[in-house]
C-alpha cells in the first residue's frame, strides 16, 4: 500500500521508499524512514497535498510524492490505537 492511498484519519507505518533521488532524500531527511508510524491528519482544501503527523512533526506532501512511500495500514480513525509503539519493532543493529 502507498501513502497516497491512505484516507484521512488512517494510521500507518512506513515499510519502504520507492521514490528516487531528491524526493527520496527529502523524505528521509524529514524522518519518514522505515518503521516510522504516522497518522494522516488532513487533505488540503483542493484535495492535494496531504498532511501527516509523526513524532512532533507536521509534514505536508503532494500525493505525487506520497506515492513514493510504501506503508502498511495500522489503524483508522477512532479505533483507539496509539500512534507510536513504546518499543519500536526494528532496532538498531538488527
Amino acid at each position, binding site marked *: 500500500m502507498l501513502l497516497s492511498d491512505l484516507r484521512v484519519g488512517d494510521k500507518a507505518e512506513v515499510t519502504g521508499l520507492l521514490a528516487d533521488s531528491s524526493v527520496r*532524500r527529502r523524505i528521509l531527511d524529514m*524522518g519518514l524512514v522505515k518503521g516510522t508510524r504516522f497518522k494522516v491528519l*488532513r487533505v*488540503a*482544501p*483542493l484535495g492535494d497535498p496531504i498532511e501527516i503527523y509523526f513524532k512532533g*512533526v507536521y509534514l505536508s*506532501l503532494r500525493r505525487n510524492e506520497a506515492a513514493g512511500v510504501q506503508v502498511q495500514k495500522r489503524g483508522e480513525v477512532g479505533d483507539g490505537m496509539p500512534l507510536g509503539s513504546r518499543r519500536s519493532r526494528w532496532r538498531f543493529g538488527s
Partner: protein
Amino acid sequence: MTVLKEVKVALAGNPNCGKSSLFNALTGSHQKVGNFSGVTIEKHEGYVDYRNYRIRFVDLPGTYSLTAYSPEELVTRNYLIENSPDIVINVLEGPNLERNLLLTTQLMEMEVDLLVALNMYDEVQAQGIDIKVKQLQRLLGCHIVPTSAKKKEGLDSLLDHVIRVYEKDIEVKKNKLAFRPEVDKAIEEIAELLSREPELDKYNLRWLAIKLLENDKEVYNVVRQYPAWVKIELILQRVMQETEAVYKADPEIIITEDRYAFIRGAMQECMKLPRDKKLSLTDYIDLIVLNRALGLPIFLFVVWVIFHMTFTLGTPMMDGLDYLFGALADTVAPFLPNDTLRSVLVDGLIAGVGGVLIFLPNIVLLFIGLSFLEASGYMARAAFVVDKVMHRFGLHGKSFIPMITGFGCSIPAIMATRTLKSRSDRLATIMVIPFMSCGAKLPVYVLLAGAFFRPAVAANVMFGIYMFGIIVGLFSALVMKKTVLKSESEPFVMELPPYRWPSLRSVLVQAKVKAMMYLKKAGTIILLAVLLIWTFSNYPRNPELDAALDREIASIEQSIADETERQDAIIAVENRINAGQLEYSLAGRAGKLLEPVIKPLGFDWRIGIALVTGLAAKEIVVSTMGTIYSLGEADETSSELKTILKNDPAFDQATALSLMVFVLLYIPCVAAVGVMRKEIGEWKSVAFYGAYALTAAWIFSFITYRLAQLVL
C-alpha cells in the same frame, strides 16, 4: 585596553528552530548582512564581546540535513569545511527534538567542535517534556546548554561554554555513531584509502567516506580526481550488493535509518513526553485555518490583508516621498542659474534618486508582513492550501504570494521569491510576476480605457486586461517549466512548523535587511538606468528649437500686455518646443526608428517614444504622451489629453487596446529589471526574459489590434 581574543562560531540548525532569534539575542545590534559567495542566500554575521573574547557568529541557513540537494545545505557544509569555525553551535528546537537531531548526527560525523543549544527550553518545560540533558550529552559527545532566545535565558551560559570549549577547559569526548557492520567496515576501508591522498587533508575522511556511500554528487566529484578512486569504486559496488542482499536497501537508506535508530534510542533513554498528549494550540488553529471549507477563504483574506497593508498603507508614503522630492527639486532649481546643470541635477539626479527611494515603503511594509507570516508558521500553510492550483502551472504553492504582490509592484514581489528553494521554481515565478499588472501600469489603462470606451465598458476593459495578464503569466510559467526550466522542481515535502508568535525584533530586522539590500544592490543599477533614460530623452538638443523658443518668447512679451494671457501663451510655446525637443532627442529618434516594427500593432512613432521612456517607469508612458502632444505636465485624469487622443486620427479603440496589451506585457521598468538581475544573479536569464516579454507583447498586441479592428 586589552586585545580581545577572537572566537569564530557558526550557528547551524533546522529551519524554525529559533536559530535567528538566538542569533539576534546573542549579537544584539552588532550585525551585518551579506550573501554567501555565489548564491542569493543571506549571510548574517554578528559579534558579541564577552569577558576577554570577541565572539563572532555566523548564522548559517536553516537546514534539515547536510546533503548536497539544496543550496542551503551545500552552503552550510561548505562553510564548515572551508572556513573551519572554532566552534559550531547546533541549535535544537527543544519541543521537537527528535527530527532536529538528524542534523546533529551529521555534524557529529564531520567531527566539528560541537556545542548544542537546546533552544526554546521554556516551551519544553511548559509542555511538561522531561529531557535528561546529562545523559543526552554523553550520547551526543558534546555539551548541551538549555537556552531560550525569547526569554533571553541561558545565553551567558552558552557564551561561557563557547569560551571553555575554545580554551579546551572542558573535555569533550566525541562520540561516534555506529552503522550496520557492512557499512561501518566499508567506511573504514574507504577512509583508509582516502588517507593516502594528502590533498584531502582539510576534509574529515570518515565523513567523506559516509558521503560517498550516501551517493553524494559533490563529494563524488571531489574524490573522483584521485587515484584512490579506482579502489574506492570497487568497495562502493561491493557494499551496494551486500546491503541489497541483506536489507533490500541501498547504503544511503541504511545510513539514514541507522542515524534515526540512534536518535530513537537516544530519545528513549533521555526524553519523556507527558503521558497524555493533549491537542496543542497548533492543532486547534489548524482545525480552522486548514479546514477544507474555510482554508481557502482564510488564505485569501490573509493575502488581501497583506496586499492592503503594503499598498493602501504604502501609497500615501510613496506620494509623500514623491512630494518631498518634488519640493526638493523646486527648492534647489532657483539656485542653479545654468540651464544644463539645473536640468541634470533636478530632472536627472533628484528625480532618479526619488525614483529609487519611492519603492522603499512598499518593500518595507511587504516584508514586515511576509516575515510575520513566515515566522508565525502560516507561510507554509498558505503554500499547502494553494499548491494544487499553482502546481498545475508548474509552480510551487509558495509562488502564490509573490505573484499576487506583483499586482502592487514587481520589485518587492521579485524579492519575495526568496522563499522558494528550487532555482527553477524561483526563476519561473520571477518571470511570471511582471505579467501581473503593477500599480504603475494602472494610469496607462485608466487613460486609454477612459478616453476610448464608455465608463461601463472601460471598467470591463480594465478587468479584462488584468485577467489577460494572469492568463499569459500562468501559461508562460507552464511553457517555461516544460522547456527552458525543465530541471527538477522542488519536491513538495514540507514541514508545517508549529505556530509561534514572532518577535517584533526579528520581523523588523528582516524588513530592514530587505530594504538595505534593495538600496545597495538594486539601487545603483536603477539609478544608473534612470539617468541613462533621462539623458536619452533630453539629448541631443536641437539648437534651432532653443533659438526659436527664445525668439517666440521675446515676441510674446512684446506683443501681449495682459499678464495671465502672456503666461499662458509662453507655456503653450514652451510645450510645443518641448515636444519638438523630445522628437529630436535620442529617445525620439529611437521611437521613429521603431516605427516600422510597431506599425503592425497600430502604433506610430509617438507611441514608440512613450514606450521607450516608459522603460524608466510605466506611468511615464502617460506623461510622455502629454509632452509629445504639447500639453506639458499631464496625468491619466487629464481630460485635455483624453480629448486630444480621441481626436487623433492615428488613435482608435483598436490602437488603445493594442497599446494596453503591449504595456502590460513588454519589459518591466528598469527598477524591476535591476532587481531581477540582482535576484537571478546573472544577465543571461534577464536577457532571455526581456526577449520573451517583447516577443509576447508584440504577438499579443498584433492579435489584439487585428481582432479589435474586425470586431469594433
